[in-house]
């Protein structure tokens, strides 16, 4: 209050912790909020989660009514939230978009993982590892845009090789559903060379199903996102998990950090900041292993 002019509020609007990755996002956002408030006296960080696009639009309205200086938003869905975010922008708020690009680039700062990149990197790895030939099954997430981007890029990446996707189903980014789908895939297909499930949560279920069936034809399972247990397996040289593709939930912290730096330190932060969809292998796994993170 002594330096009223220096009191600033950053609102962080993110999806509710409805599966492993978003859970990680909420965790990192809350941690970073505490860290930033400690670092910048006079900064208030409000973290709000929403279970779906429509409620996120509501939350944006509500946050704006409270009076905010900057908004860090990880939209449920770009199409749905472009207009609501535009509304907020209209009130003169600094906008940082995380992960999912809006339809119009109205944001000031864009911090993202790379969904198509995740598909492309995964495809390249699968091709290489299988020697350009083999039958694979794909377990998809939920039918939303992120999933679609990853899967299209993946299919695109396989083009021209003899790696064939013999089946794909939705596993809803859930361990249990992935377990079931994998059990049934194993029944259905006598020979599967590899599994791509784009998400480490689902990989947990897939591995368990393979273990139970005792099948040896499956050479490897490729997940994604960089869950610590999976990174550990890569690090330990587990043959079924030879690699992982990063899609770190901590990107939200990066975005918050940059936003706060822009607000307080007057650093030039406008622009795009795209995190690589890094391929984690045995060689570099150590760098990406955070044993204390919940994800």
């Amino acid at each position, binding site marked *: 209050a002594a330096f009223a002019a220096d009191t600033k509020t950053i609102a962080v609007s993110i999806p509710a912790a409805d599966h492993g990755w978003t859970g990680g996002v909420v965790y990192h956002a809350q941690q970073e909020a505490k860290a930033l408030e400690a670092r910048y006296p006079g900064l208030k960080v409000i973290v709000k989660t929403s279970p779906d696009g429509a409620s996120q639009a509501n939350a944006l309205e*509500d946050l704006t009514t409270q009076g905010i200086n900057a908004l860090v938003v990880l939209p449920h869905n770009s199409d749905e939230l472009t207009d609501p975010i535009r509304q907020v922008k209209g009130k003169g708020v600094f906008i940082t978009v995380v992960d999912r690009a809006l339809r119009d680039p109205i944001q000031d700062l864009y911090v993202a993982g790379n969904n198509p990149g995740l598909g492309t990197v995964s495809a390249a790895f699968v091709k290489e590892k299988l020697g350009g030939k083999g039958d694979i099954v794909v377990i998809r997430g939920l039918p939303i845009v992120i999933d679609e981007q990853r899967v299209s890029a993946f299919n695109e990446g396989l083009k021209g090789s003899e790696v064939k996707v013999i089946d794909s189903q939705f596993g809803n980014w859930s361990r249990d559903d992935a377990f079931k789908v994998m059990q049934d895939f194993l029944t259905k297909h006598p020979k599967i060379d590899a599994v791509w499930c784009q998400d480490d949560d689902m990989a947990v279920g897939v591995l368990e199903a393979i273990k139970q069936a005792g099948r040896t034809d499956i050479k490897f399972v490729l997940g994604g996102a960089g869950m610590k247990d999976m990174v550990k397996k890569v690090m330990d040289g587990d043959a079924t998990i030879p690699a992982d593709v990063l899609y770190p939930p901590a990107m939200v912290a990066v975005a918050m950090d940059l936003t706060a730096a822009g607000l307080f330190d007057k650093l030039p932060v406008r622009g795009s900041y795209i995190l690589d969809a890094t391929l984690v292998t045995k060689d570099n796994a150590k760098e990406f292993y955070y044993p204390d993170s919940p994800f």
Partner: protein
Amino acid sequence: MSGELAPTKAASRFQDFDLRAIAPFAALAVLMVLGYFVNARFIDLDNLTNVLARSAFIATIAVGATFVITAGGLDLSVGSMAALVSGVMILFLNKAMIGDGYMLLATGMVLALLLGGLCGAANGLGVTAGRLEPFIVTLGTMAIFRSLLIWLADGGSIAMKSMELRADYRPVYFGTILGLPFPVWVIIAVAVIGAFLLYRTTFGRHVMAVGSNEDVARYSGISVGRVRMLTYIIQGLCVAIAVLVYVPRLGSTTSTTGLGWELQAITAVVVGGTALRGGVGRIWGTICGALILEVISNIMVLSNFVSEYLVGAVQGAIIIIAMLVQRSLARRN
């Protein structure tokens, strides 16, 4: 069959009705006071109009649900139906070749209403001609509608392409008339028409009779199937109306649109004082129920005490407490 024979206090029915009908509004008032203490900005005009406008979807759908539930039915498919109807509507707006923007919008709206009615009729058919439990029929169509949307959207989302059209359509959510947001007028219109239908027409009387005791209704010459069918069609139309207001807000539909709306709508109905076993319907209570839900989630965002992880718990607890308050009010009488 239960309850009727139990010794009841001989309060005249009128008094009784009154306090019960008022209870949800009392709960809403208490919540508003709570909201003010949580964050003084709660009573900002901007905030209140936001909350009101937003509650339009659930309120509209819940008015339809009031009919279905009063007639002793249930509809779990409304959320998926909303997604499907809005998806088809947007696809139509994107593809159709009608020159004038307003003409196109009008046609799209009519199409949405038709489709909503049709979806409702499908549910009604399963319940009446198929003689299945409403729970099963609408659980089935819930899956079917959503699947169809996902298929239409190719797993992604469906967005309005034309920016001009969006601009033309925007006022339907964001515009105001006489200072009140347009969606609020929609709530009022839907509720007034709903209340008229339910309380003042023969059809409404028949709805209550069917929900009260199907046999008595049949023996009184009411064609139970027709009444049931119509309640589901009304539900479909209400969903379509909600869609008309929903589409201009976000301009797109995804596979998660409307997820969980069915539970919210039913909750609004129950919180509003309509019993799930049928026979009694309270349109204005339902509207109040929808507002209560929206106010609770608004307060959750405005408050800064609750860990994000625990928001759901607090919300759940508030709903239970609000109902306890209501019940004790109604019983006091």
